[in-house]
């Protein structure tokens, strides 16, 4: 039983890491209806930039600030060069544009900083912590704490600040928001910048976990089923989805793996998400679209 709880809690904590990437997605989807496939590449770019600057002798916080500035610059460029010319196009077109964008960002990141694997030390010991007989990774707890802080900050941003309110207005109805004088383009730039920041945080945590390397951009593939389960437009949903995926994936690997052969972590979340969708086509917290002809 203790082993079960250990696997379960380990899975839940790992799920939080998925949620971190998914949150960046949700932000952009909420404010602009763009399904941003490039979020994984943004995570890679942020982590790679940070670690390369840090290795060249920049102190932690300076490197953090410079990387953040780079992410904001990317956000501005994306808004200006990709989103603005594509305004009013179908969501599928925008999705494919972000696919192109992810290729660009990956190419640029590796051209700038090379393709070798960098180690990243955040100064958090990974010694397991015994809590009530269950061994927990300190690093995972730290990641979960970071996610909690991030979600709180984001929800405060959405509910208390002026920019957050206009963001929600845009999410609700872009045309009405335009009509009351909210500047759509600025909102998009802000949202992509915030998503870049979330990507940086996710990149640091994932980078410390896996090493900073190309496979970081594949984290996006882990975040997709999380989004599907949680719904594309709910930050809370991204967290819940992450927990569900993380826990069930680990449990499946441990208990189902020996029966049908291991290595099912790659596809299990997708099949699970598919089953969820058959029951709730818009995810747990997604909004059901009403269709008219």
């Amino acid at each position, binding site marked *: 039983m203790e082993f079960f709880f250990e696997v379960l809690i380990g899975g839940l904590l790992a799920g939080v890491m998925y949620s971190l990437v998914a949150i960046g997605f949700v932000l952009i989807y909420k404010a602009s209806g763009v399904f941003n496939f490039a979020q994984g590449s943004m995570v890679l770019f942020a982590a790679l930039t940070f670690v390369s600057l840090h290795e060249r002798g920049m102190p932690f916080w300076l490197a953090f600030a410079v990387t953040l500035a780079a992410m904001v610059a990317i956000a501005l460029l994306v808004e200006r060069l*990709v989103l603005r010319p594509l305004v009013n196009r179908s969501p599928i077109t925008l999705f494919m*544009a972000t*696919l192109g964008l992810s290729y660009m960002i990956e*190419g640029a990141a590796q051209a700038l900083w090379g393709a070798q694997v960098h180690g990243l030390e955040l100064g958090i010991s990974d010694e397991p912590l015994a809590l009530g007989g269950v061994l927990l990774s300190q690093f995972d707890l730290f990641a979960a704490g970071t996610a909690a802080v991030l979600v709180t900050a984001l929800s405060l941003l959405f509910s208390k600040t002026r920019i957050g309110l206009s963001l929600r207005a845009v999410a609700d109805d872009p045309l009405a928001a335009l009509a009351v004088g909210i500047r759509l383009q600025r909102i998009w730039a802000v949202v992509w910048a915030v998503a870049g920041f979330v990507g940086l945080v996710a990149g640091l945590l994932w980078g410390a976990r896996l090493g900073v390397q190309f496979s970081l951009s594949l984290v996006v593939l882990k975040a*997709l089923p999380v989004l599907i389960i949680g719904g594309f437009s709910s930050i809370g949903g991204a967290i819940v989805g992450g927990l569900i995926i993380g826990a069930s994936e680990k449990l499946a690997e441990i208990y189902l793996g020996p029966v049908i*052969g291991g290595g099912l972590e790659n596809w299990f979340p997708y099949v699970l998400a598919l089953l969820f969708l058959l029951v709730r*086509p818009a995810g747990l917290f997604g909004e059901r679209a009403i269709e008219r002809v």
Partner: protein
Amino acid sequence: MLYNEAGQFSISYAGERRLFRLRQDRRALALLLAFAFVIVPFVGNDYWFSAILIPFLVLSLAGLGLNLLTGYAGQLSLGSAAFMAVGAFAAYNFGLRLPGLPLLACLFLGGVTAALVAVVFGLPSLRIKGFYLIVSTLAAQFFVSWALTKFGWFSNDNASGVISAPPLTIFGVDFSAPVGRYLLTLSVVAALFWLGKNLVRSELGRNWMAVRDMDTAAAVIGIPLLKTKLLAFALSGFFLGIAGSLWAFTYLGTVEPHGFDLNRSFQVLFIIILSGLGSILGNFLGAAFMVLFPLLLSNLAGALPVGLIDPGQLENLQKFIFGALIIAFLIKEPEGLARLWQRFRERVRLWPLRY
């Protein structure tokens, strides 16, 4: 006045509805086919056949497969490579388990198997729409490559999951030389393009387009959604499956499940973005671009002074340019390369005059 239509009247419904209504189109197509079947085998060399023409033909077929699903029926898919893999491994197994089965029958059965698998993963499409459908196709992608590596049976218990092409003989004629493989690929691809071109103007093709444009409206006017969508998945899977077997048998000669990973799916998707969604001819243009562009880029880099571009950077550069091109095309020419050809045709119709 190269493309003058004047005087070409259709005096029967059959004439109005023929595949290529214009005389010029028919002649150009006949010339092109004659050129590809008769002249190219004599003038081409082995490098051209193996490294350029065969992958070009196979990729255009794969593009056609995805185009039927995404471009015509409007169902987004990121799992094309999975269906290619199913086709390749199924065709291999049919040849292996049923000795004496002719090669073309293996290809056909491989395509049918891929179609069945595609239908299974297309089943959620009635209930799930738009981006959520990505999950179904990605599930196919990851599940198929997992199953093919996990269970040795699929690759006849080869330790690394590699399958190799059966002898390429049809009616006792050996097609295993590069020229033969080229001709075999060309014949299969030409036949399937003829089928595809006819499909999209059939009733089914029209239903697909109605579903693509607005599926609720399509349902209201009495188009059976489930049947239409599943047929789109099935036919797309069939075309992709055959493209996959050709990829394994005539292009590479040997393939492992890893050869059909997510990147291959993206490659096929990029072909149809560049070529223009919902265009038959465009698949050729997109595939040609996909095959020739990396060659062009590496040749250009080779022509530059040494040290200007690090060969290691070439791949990153290529990735960057591809991404930029995708975005540029989506912004400037969302209907793709096919639209450029259409514009050219409109121009030459009036040729010496502008209007």
